[in-house]
């Protein structure tokens, strides 16, 4: 029997809310299924053989015969203009994951009957599943239209729990927890049990009551698991979902979610097993299909382990990236352990995926996700520098640093840290201690600041979870980082540490903040806004845009004097803008074109110091720099770090490091360059040999020299080194 029964439990009660217990044959079967899954199945089979076509189609939907159900629904809807018929047809499409078709049918139902509450609930449910900002508004509207509707009450309570407003949620739920209808009662008890779990108020009597009401149904546990997932408590989520599928082995949707979350706790074999069960039961689930395909592809990955840290890289990227990735991750974890007084427990796994779509599927089961990295406790998943490049604005080294900080904030608080604070610390640490110390204040943040769109600390989580405007997530990231920067400036690093401690003790967002800093949230918001005004209030975005455009236009036309003036004006206005479209490069080019190489170099160096990692100005700097300059080495290392597959960058970094007698680091660069499978391997082996020789590693130097000569036996510089090593 398909697990769709269990989804229908939460759906069919939408069908006839006014009809009461016993009035809807589908609901009757659902009540039977709560206690005995096989008896429930028999009940549906009888309905599927009945004479009421709409009931037949609904029963076939639950039984999993989507094709036959669809045919009946089509015939019904072609012969009648029934809002209910449209609605139930939409429910079928919802079950087979064709959400857009479901959405269309709900809309058609509303077109036929604007007061069709169930269709409204269906649309709201889709908005909730998609984490759309309008979900709250849709749910509230339904409640205002039908204040006693159990589904509307529970839906609003669900959103309140998500937002941390558990008291408000309880008020909505408690009247339904004693409902006569077990279908309503069990859902209400499930949400109350979720509140208990989030508060660590265990064992939960609400959970026990829910399971007593529905001993054959795992859906109550699925609801609890959902809230564990969105609060990033993946180990707890896995435990709950495992219990759900043990109660109801054919709850295929739960197997799917369990599989995806087992990947987040580094239990790959178990994950595959549950995903395969999910696929056997429901082959329409794209997340499951995508993830299983990805797991097959990941058999081409290679693991590098360094103590309690493992980095997982695609075989093609393993050679050039492994040293940098492991070194970065280790440095990050050590740095944060000291700064936040927390040592990671257990093994840390960091995965870098060579295509963005693989990362997206790994994270959410579906392609098209907007983020570039994600941390699930001790498991970090992110794009590799091949999936997104520095030219596209993606600095993988900073992203890895960012995600490593999440490991700390999640671990240090048992995953209780609020979303915004964890992001804030991660962004702040990128700026403060990160590999590039890249501190970018993007245009959308300045815009939001100047248009009063920033959220207060008490509501900042909403900016991440349910954004109200397109750029709000990005703005929230920057704001969160600046808040942490402000806290450090006003209260010291200890202020951030105390906030983490508050979360660990179970305090909610507001109380953790206020108790740690001894200020009210409102006072803090006011002071912070003053800080922002002082730092960024003078930026005139219109003037900046005009100056930048003028600089680029002048450069295109060869008017370098004009380009210089305009670029300087743009930078003076908004010096922290170092993203694509910045004017540092054009200013440097203008200076160079006007014959002032020193000023050109000074601009490029300033850009780099601000955290700019656009390869073009950095490469230009190196072309014009003396090998003896210390900063040339660091700039070359920066370039090799953000563009690790750029052969020329790796070689140049190696050459400069060797020139400055940093032979071990030079060796890493030459080995990485060799792993990029260059045409001229003999020359690189010779450079590696020289670096090994420079570090006193004679055996290694000899092996590398022989490797060079094996390719090119008449390679004179290598022959000379061979003689020297043999003396």
């Amino acid at each position: 029997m398909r697990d769709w029964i269990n989804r229908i439990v939460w759906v069919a009660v939408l069908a006839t809310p006014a009809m009461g217990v016993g009035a809807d044959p589908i609901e009757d079967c659902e009540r039977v299924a709560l206690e005995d899954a096989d008896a429930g199945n028999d009940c549906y089979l009888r309905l599927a053989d009945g004479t009421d076509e709409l009931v037949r189609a609904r029963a076939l939907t639950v039984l999993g015969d989507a094709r036959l159900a669809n045919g009946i629904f089509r015939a019904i809807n072609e012969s009648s203009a029934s809002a209910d018929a449209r609605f139930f047809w939409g429910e079928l499409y919802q079950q087979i994951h064709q959400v857009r078709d479901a959405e269309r049918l709900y809309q058609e139902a509303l077109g036929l009957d604007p007061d069709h509450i169930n269709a409204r609930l269906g649309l709201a449910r889709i908005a909730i599943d998609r984490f759309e900002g309008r979900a709250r508004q849709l749910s509230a509207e339904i409640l205002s239209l039908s204040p006693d509707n159990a589904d509307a009450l529970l839906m609003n309570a669900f959103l309140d729990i998500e937002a941390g407003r558990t008291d408000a949620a309880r008020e909505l739920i408690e009247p339904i927890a004693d409902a006569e209808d077990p279908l309503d009662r069990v859902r209400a008890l499930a949400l109350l049990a979720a509140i208990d779990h989030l508060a660590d108020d265990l064992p939960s009597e609400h959970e026990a009551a829910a399971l007593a009401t529905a001993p054959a149904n795992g859906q109550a546990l699925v609801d609890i698991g959902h809230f564990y997932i969105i609060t990033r408590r993946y180990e707890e989520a896995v435990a709950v979902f495992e219990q759900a599928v043990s109660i109801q082995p054919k709850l295929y949707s739960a197997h799917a979610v369990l599989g995806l979350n087992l990947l987040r706790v580094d239990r790959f074999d178990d994950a595959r097993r549950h995903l395969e069960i999910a696929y056997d039961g429901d082959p329409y689930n794209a997340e499951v299909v995508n993830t299983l395909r990805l797991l097959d592809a990941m058999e081409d990955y290679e693991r590098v382990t360094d103590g309690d840290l493992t980095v997982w890289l695609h075989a093609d990227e393993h050679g050039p990236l492994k040293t940098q990735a492991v070194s970065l991750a280790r440095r990050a974890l050590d740095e944060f352990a000291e700064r936040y007084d927390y040592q990671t427990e257990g093994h840390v796994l960091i995965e870098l995926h060579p295509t963005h779509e693989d990362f997206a599927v790994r994270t959410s089961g579906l392609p098209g996700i907007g983020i570039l990295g994600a941390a699930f406790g001790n498991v970090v998943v992110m794009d590799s520098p091949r999936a997104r490049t520095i030219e596209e604005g993606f600095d993988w080294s900073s992203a890895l640093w960012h995600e490593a900080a999440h490991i700390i904030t999640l671990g240090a608080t048992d995953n209780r840290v609020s979303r915004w604070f964890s992001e804030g610390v991660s962004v702040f640490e990128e700026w403060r201690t990160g590999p590039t110390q890249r501190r970018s204040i993007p245009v959308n943040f300045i815009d939001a600041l100047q248009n009063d769109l920033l959220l207060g600390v008490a509501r900042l989580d909403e900016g991440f979870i349910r954004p109200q405007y397109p750029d709000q997530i990005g703005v929230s990231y920057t704001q969160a980082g600046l808040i942490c920067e402000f806290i450090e400036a006003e209260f010291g690093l200890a202020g951030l540490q105390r906030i983490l401690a508050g979360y660990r003790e179970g305090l909610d967002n507001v109380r953790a903040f206020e108790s740690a800093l001894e200020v009210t949230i409102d006072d803090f918001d006011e002071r912070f806004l003053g800080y922002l005004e002082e730092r960024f209030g003078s930026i005139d975005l219109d003037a900046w845009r005009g100056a930048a455009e003028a600089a680029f236009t002048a450069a295109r036309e060869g008017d370098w004097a004009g380009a210089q003036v305009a670029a300087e004006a743009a930078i003076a206005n908004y010096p922290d803008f170092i993203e694509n479209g910045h004017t540092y490069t054009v200013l440097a080019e203008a200076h160079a074109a006007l014959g002032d190489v020193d000023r050109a170099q000074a601009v490029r160096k300033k850009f780099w110091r601000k955290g700019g990692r656009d390869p073009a100005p950095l490469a230009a700097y190196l072309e014009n720099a003396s090998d003896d300059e210390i900063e040339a080495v660091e700039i070359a290392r920066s370039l090799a770090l953000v563009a690790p597959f750029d052969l020329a960058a790796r070689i140049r970094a190696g050459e400069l490091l060797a020139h400055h007698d940093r032979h071990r680091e030079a060796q890493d660069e030459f080995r990485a360059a060799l792993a990029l499978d260059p045409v001229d391997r003999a020359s690189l082996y010779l450079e590696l040999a020289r670096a090994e020789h420079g570090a006193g590693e004679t055996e290694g130097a000899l092996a590398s020299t022989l490797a060079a000569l094996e390719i090119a036996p008449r390679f004179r510089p290598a022959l000379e080194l061979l003689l020297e090593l043999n003396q």
Partner: protein
Amino acid sequence: MSWLSAKTLRGALLGALVITGSASAATHALVVAGFGGDADYDQVFNQEAQTIADALSALGPVNVLAAGEANRESLAAAIRDLAATAEADDTAIVVMLGHGSYDTRHYRYHLRGPDPTGEDLTQWLSSLRADSQLVVLATSASGAVFDALEADNRIVFTATKNGQEQITTVFGRYFAEGLTRDEADTDKNGAISADEAFAYVERAIEAHFEADRRLASEHALRSEAEAPMRLARVATTTEYDTPTRTALEAVEDEVVALRASKSSMPPGEYLEKLQALLIEIAILEAEAEAQP
């Protein structure tokens, strides 16, 4: 150097540094820039041809047909000339750059006026007498004639794997570039062989499409046989007296033989023998270098 359109460089280049392997064997080359269709492509093809001709001129006489002048008759005549001058023990090299097309029956190499077909090229090239031949067809759709152009004594490079790859190729650009880059000389013998040039081109084309994040619209093909003929010099090589040169070549042959048996030897033994041979080479080179 300015472009000398439609002029042979034979006379101008006879005074250039020419070091050949033996007194009798010579390298004779023909480089053709096809019809660009517009001024920009004409310029591109001419520049590529010039670069290639400059490189080949260090090895022997080079005849160049420029984009503005090359046509069916002049190409046929140039190949006849090459057949007449390149003897049996010489090396004959023909490089054709530009646009090509394929209509499922015939490949055509775009020149001014009527375009020669793949059948024309095959017939004309069959008159070459040289025992060592290299034909490089660096055009779109060139893969359509790969099989027809191959012969026992001829290595063929085409820019595409079949006639369907009809987008203008970058093969010619990177082939020309490779003949000027030290890094293309992977065995560090001071010369770029056809094998080395092709390896360079293949890698450069892969990097080209990867950098643009595009699917490759061309896939070069080459004959399976080794192509040791030299196409360019990247360093002035040392003059050796005959005994030294003979000794070096003998030890180098031993290295090659040892490499071939690597998989059947214990690693330690292989490295020991390799090192011994290489030290021998190193000493001979050092002694040659020390001689006045």
